[in-house]
């Protein structure tokens, strides 16, 4: 038996045209039971990709499959949980009633639907307010209701569009934990966010869309390593900076060193070799190296480099 995780979402050479405008061009990628980040500027085809993934659009070419079924079929929709980014809900209803109503269409009996809605909203931190009308909810509470309806039917693929919006820092951290825990329960997650550092903290890899094309697909570090024309930059703080700079400039993997007000900025051509060598140096450096911060190997930097 193979240990390959099951594919919950598959884009197979998907192209989507709106009239003569191509929103997506030949996009192929897969999501297994993992957390994948969807990154892209506004208007590059992210929304189209998400609507295709949840079966609200038909691809012009190619195929979108959820758990092996065409994304527009009922079989697929039974396995999809979608948390949209728009703020409208059934305002007069309570959170628990809204989630229970949605569950009814999954074939869940009324009483069981209510119990499941209470369970999921309690878990999402809405235990005290779930019987109040949604129109009285704060932005964060509304976001939890949207999450609740996406998770209540125990989907196998969850698509979260800007899920952190409106949440306070504590709730964000809790949601990040929840998202990170979903793959352990056999759920694949595609999460879109403009808050790249938060996204980076929860995803296993990213899918980067730009101008309708799939620009990159992989782990952030791997993507960063695929940009040799972009030297890595580091900020160093420590004692005897002039001496340190003169030493570093002699290293072949260092492209350049410049002085900052309180440290050095080092440009690297080969960062792997640099770190090996630098760990020896830092251990012996008189006065110590206080800080070494990579400046451009996070998701935001990689995203910036790739779309430039």
């Amino acid at each position, binding site marked *: 038996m193979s240990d390959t995780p099951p594919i919950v979402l598959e884009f197979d050479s998907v192209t989507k045209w709106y009239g003569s405008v191509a929103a997506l061009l030949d996009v192929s990628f897969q999501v297994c039971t993992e957390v994948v980040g969807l990154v892209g500027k506004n208007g590059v085809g992210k929304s189209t990709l998400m609507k295709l993934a949840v079966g609200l659009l038909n691809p012009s070419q190619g195929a979108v499959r959820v758990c092996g079924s065409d994304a527009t079929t*009922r*079989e697929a929709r039974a396995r999809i949980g979608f948390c949209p980014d728009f703020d*409208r809900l*059934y305002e007069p209803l309570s959170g628990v009633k809204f989630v229970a109503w949605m569950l009814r269409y999954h074939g869940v009996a009324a009483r069981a639907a209510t119990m499941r809605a209470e369970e999921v909203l309690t*878990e999402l931190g809405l235990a005290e307010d779930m019987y109040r009308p949604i129109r009285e909810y704060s932005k964060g509470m509304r976001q939890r209701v949207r999450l609740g309806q996406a998770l209540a039917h125990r989907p196998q693929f969850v698509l979260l569009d800007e899920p952190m919006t409106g949440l306070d820092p504590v709730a964000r951290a809790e949601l990040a934990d929840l998202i990170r825990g979903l793959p352990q*329960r056999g759920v694949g997650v595609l999460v879109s966010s403009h808050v790249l550092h938060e996204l980076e903290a929860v995803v296993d890899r990213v899918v980067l869309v730009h101008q309708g094309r799939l620009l990159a697909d992989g782990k952030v570090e791997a993507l960063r390593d695929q940009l040799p024309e972009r030297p890595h930059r580091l900020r160093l703080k420590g004692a005897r900076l002039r001496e340190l700079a003169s030493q570093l400039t002699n290293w072949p993997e260092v492209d350049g060193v410049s002085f900052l007000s309180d440290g050095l900025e080092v440009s690297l051509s080969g960062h792997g070799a640099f770190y090996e060598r630098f760990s020896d140096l830092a251990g012996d450096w008189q006065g110590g190296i206080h800080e070494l911060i990579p400046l451009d190997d996070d998701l935001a930097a990689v995203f910036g480099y790739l779309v430039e």
Partner: protein
Amino acid sequence: MTTTTNSAAGNSGLARAVPRLSVLATILESARQTLVMLRYRRILWVAPIGLLLLFALAFVLAGTARSRSDGAHLYSVFAWWGLATVVMPWATLFLGVQAVHGELEDRTSQYLFLRPVHRVPLFLGKWLAIAAVSSALACCSAAALYVAVASREDLWPDGREPWLLVSFCIVLGLGATAYSAVAVFLAATFRRPLAWAAFFVVGLQMLAANLPVSAGLRQLTITDPLRRMTLDLIEPSRRLARALWPAERNEALSIENGTGAFLLEFGSPLCSLLILVVVCLTLGCWQYARTEYESRNRD
């Protein structure tokens, strides 16, 4: 948000069977949810006030009626020209448009479209709910009107005629059902359904339906078959028939009275209404069930 338990989401394998809600259960659930949402709309809270006003107005008008106007005549004229041609069409179209169009415009319909049920029963459930509410409101209005007129004993020298109330309830119920089909069709098809509804009521129902018998256009309306049914049911005097169908004057009685308006045969009023309902629901379902159905694609 607690993340210690293991139940917010999760599965038991990709081969898990997908629970199904039957078509009938989906229709009923959609109707139930539409009814509950209607409960929160202001128009339904306005309805009792409207009924009271209607009662008061009818009571006052009945009191000032000329001596030669009898109760049956007054009631029929009020019920036809007030309820069947103005209040019921507008109220039904407004409710129907609100129920379908509101969800599409604020995109809450997407929550429904992501469920593993077909959209056609969702749409039919909404129509069913609007038809039921509109019919009930129309019948309550007819009853309020009847009570107001019937309370003037002097207007009924030969005794009251409850059959009139039953007749108008039948006609108004059928009319509300047909208008609700038009409403959900307009709401599913157009971005500005209330403007189209206004055109439908004023242009088709108020103008075209009052053309003479020879004008074929009137057969495309709801008002025309409803009027023929009314005339068939209440068996009016010549004077009342003229009052209900001014365009025909002398011919109204001879042409329409007792012609079997409720026969289910091609060309009969009942058949005309049925065809209109089926066409509207078919077109509405076709629009609503398209995969790429979004408000921005309409019009």
